[in-house]
């Protein structure tokens, strides 16, 4: 529960714990809580919230703790408070299943409404929730093109330039002295940015997995890994010691 603990901590020097990068000429900040902030447009991106994942499993007979939505929203609240964005883009798989937003308990609905007050909120549709959201603030869309960037859930093999995508839950593994540490990460080669999954109960997929093949120019690929209390930036070639 590193991110949840980090979300409730006061950060003195944000510059020291985050990582600045540039995607297709647009300046961006990787927040250690797993969100991407674009200062020029005051736009905040989060991806793969997978809200109501516990409930989705409960619907299938596995009674996972009903606290994941609560925890994810707490982290989301912290990151929104920090940056006070004008626009929030949630990059798809906002809910873990199609009926997730319809069955959302009232307390969470209220919370999201509070967070969205005074800003634009875009729900990009994902493969888990292709039908958009029910009874929530903001608008749904399959893609968003804004400020020279393309925001979509699944990375497209055709047009990498300026793409911000999610879906794959990238994670990177560092191996030093025969010991391995794996963490979720932002992955970017300067053209495309692949976002870490923001949901508290989501797993990760290694950057070396075949699903990642062809997405990046590997010599320029950097993994901005989510550490306990800061971002660690490691070049792809240096992941394995």
């Amino acid at each position, binding site marked *: *529960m590193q991110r*949840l603990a980090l979300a409730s901590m006061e950060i003195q020097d944000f510059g020291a714990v985050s*990582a*600045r*990068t*540039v995607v297709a000429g647009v300046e961006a900040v990787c927040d250690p809580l797993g969100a991407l902030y674009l200062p020029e447009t005051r736009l905040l991106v989060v991806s793969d919230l997978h809200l109501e994942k*516990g*409930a989705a499993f*409960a*619907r299938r*007979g*596995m*009674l*996972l*703790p*009903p*606290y*994941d939505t*609560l*925890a994810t929203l707490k982290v989301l609240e912290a990151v929104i408070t920090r940056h006070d964005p004008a626009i929030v883009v949630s990059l798809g798989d906002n809910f873990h299943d199609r009926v997730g937003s319809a069955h959302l*308990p009232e307390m969470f609905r209220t919370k999201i409404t509070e967070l969205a007050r005074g800003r634009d909120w875009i729900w990009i549709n994902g493969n888990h929730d292709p039908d958009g959201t029910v009874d929530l603030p903001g608008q749904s869309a399959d893609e968003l093109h804004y400020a020279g960037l393309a925001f979509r859930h699944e990375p497209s093999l055709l047009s990498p330039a300026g793409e911000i995508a999610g879906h794959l839950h990238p994670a990177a*593994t*560092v*191996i*030093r*002295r*025969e*010991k*391995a*540490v*794996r*963490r979720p990460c932002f992955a970017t080669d300067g053209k495309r940015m692949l976002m870490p999954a923001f949901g*508290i*109960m*989501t*797993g*990760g997929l290694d950057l070396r997995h075949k699903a990642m093949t062809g997405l990046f120019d590997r010599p*320029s690929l*950097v993994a901005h*890994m989510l*550490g*306990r209390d800061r971002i*660690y*930036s*490691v*070049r792809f070639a*240096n*992941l*394995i*010691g």
Partner: protein
Amino acid sequence: MNSFDSISGETAAGLALLPKPFADWFAAKGWQPRAHQMELLARATAGESLLLIAPTGAGKTLAGFLPALTDLTRRGKIPPGSAFTGIHTLYISPLKALAVDIERNLMKPVSEMGLPILVETRTGDTPQAKRQRQRLNPPDILLTTPEQVALLIANGEAERFFKDLKYVIFDELHSLVTSKRGHLLSLGLARLRRLAPGLRTIGLSATVAEPMDLRRWLVEQASEQQNHAGLVTAPGGAKPIITILKSEERVPWSGHSAKYAMPEVYEAIKAHQTSLLFVNTRSQAEILFQALWNINEDTLPIALHHGSLDVGQRRRVEAAMAENRLRAVVATSTLDLGIDWGDVDLVIHVGAPKGASRLAQRIGRANHRMDEPSRAILVPANRFEVMECQAALDANYLGAQDTPPVGQGALDVLAQHVLGMACAGPFDEDALFAEVTSASPYTELPREKFGRIVQFVATGGYALKTYERYARIRKTADGLWRVSNPGVAQQYRLNLGTIVEMPMLNVRMVKRGAKGVVGRGGASLGKVEEYFLEMLAPGDTFLFSGKVLRFEGIRENECLVSQAFSLDAKVPAYAGGKFPLSTYLADQVRSMLDDPQRWGALPDQVRDWLALQRDVSTLPKRDELLIETFPRGSRHYMVAYPFEGRLAHQTLGMLLTRRLERAGRRPLGFVATDYSLAIWALDDLGYTFAVERPSLSSLFDEDMLGDDLEAWLDESFMLKRTFRNCAVIAGLIEQRHPGKEKTGRQVTVSADLIYDVLRSHEPDHILLEATRNDAAAGLLDIQRLGDMLVRIKGHITHRRLDRISPLAVPIMLEIGKELVAGEAQDSLLAEAAEDLIAEAMGETQI
């Protein structure tokens, strides 16, 4: 052999009960029914439930079945067209292979006597059609496993199937009762007693420390009194002949491979017909097997057997062994239990046995004829193990036992059982509580806790009640709990059981061409833990299945490997079943250190080592804790010698490190073995203790088991692993799901995340309580640590040395092999990130 007048009354009563075909069969074989066999027959027939304690080779199996066989013989065949008759006898064994094996050993007498008895097996491998037929037309005797019993009683037809049950026989009861499988089985037995109130139980066991635990386990417990089964004891056979291997080579300071002794071990194999070589871990098995084949000039048929190997391969080894085609088998605990292994005439134990009872049981594998002594050779892998082997050898002659206690029934197992009972039919909560508490592991269960378990099964038992509409079981108007839909029962059946496997990947052999891996149709070699593979890079080599393999990569759920053309390999680091040193042996080793009179039995080099230690430092007294401090390189070390086993030492190491950290002593790390614990720090620990900042007595105060333990548990990765097991057993996350098999990785990732979420939002949840109980008893060994802290209070001896002592050498050699956890992980990340900064300053904006 027995003259008639020496026969006891019970033996005579048993003989009188023996139907003619049996008496004739014994006579034809030239055998005399043994006294314990006849006593068991007489007392069971008279209606008693019994525990039979007998050494291997005492005709235990036949003894266990005699009451059922004679009863069925008297009953005769059921005429066709009669009303449905359920099974008469249930035989439950911990091993699938054992049930198959007993079928052979039981079927032989049954067919030779021409008894009208139908015997069948039922395991996870039994085809669906045969299971179906067994339900419709049950055999007289069913040989099965604990998991199958759980499945059968969770079925709607259980009442009909078990209504005629007379006997339940538990084989290897001593090994069953101490595990969660035993807990589940005890609950199953409680249900069987309700379905067939007159049933008698017969437990078959090796010698144990506390027979009363087992006797209580076998019968119904009531709140007012403690009931227990009767006891029948067979006389022990000839004393085994055990020696400790004396090698020309030096016994190493540390390590577990015992490579130094290979020539002598090989000679011993050559000098005997069939040898069983026992080791404690799978990696040791691989290394030993490899080392033997390196010197196997006579190409003796030597095989390997451990739990990770492909099932087909294991069965081939077992078959070859039974047919006496092998000269030696290198094996782990998968072979501990009582399979009949043909004519084994030598057991070689490589590495220390860790427990006196374990050694006795393993030695029992050699020579099943109980009148001849078993032969065994102990091969210590390092110097501490020399003492441990000597202690185990002494214990064996004294008949000392150190089997673990039965323990409190686990809550995750109870949750599984409650769901199973709902699948069997509607239940009343109070009635089920009464039934559950009649099982000896659960007699102390409070009613309130049982209620929470039922709530957990229904809706997850969370304080935040949002899952009512997804309940798996519901209380209906008549006050009974029922499953919500048929899907629940299906899910239960798929997830049943208490053995949770580590996430494993199949290891598959592929060919390697000039351009990399070609094809993927090669043989499957077995399974290996995923976390081990995560540390490998393509091209790395490792030992598995007796081969040096080259790691090629992971494809979906398979680990691809090719033949490596080298003899050197990275050692398989995965540890399977490493037992901690038993309390009894630990005490014996301490007393041996304290008593130079007992050093006579030790090899010269070990004696010299101890003498040197006495000269430059000191040897700890039996009830004393010795602590040495010394500088080395740029660091300061503290080595403690509690001899309480690796698990307790690990917990102690974690707690001491935290305390030193808080005192500002800048500890850097620690490493634990079965015998000692080393902590290193930037500060001079010797000086620290000398000026009592803190003092050793406050550092080692029992109060560390209070808040410090709690605080540490919060972030312990060990607890996550325990939680995963509990969550799978309790049915919170699934082992498998119809149609789509989850990979181990998916289960692992989500279990850790679920643990984090649950811990931060509902730390008192029943499943977290189950997890803490499990960890305290298992991985953390809290009880033992607590006992030790009490024992050493006021008996701590500190030696400030200017250099490493002889006794400290073994543990100092272990440093660097420890795993990374917790905060240390982030320091590796920082290291990797710094590499990048150093290399690419200004190149990319990071």
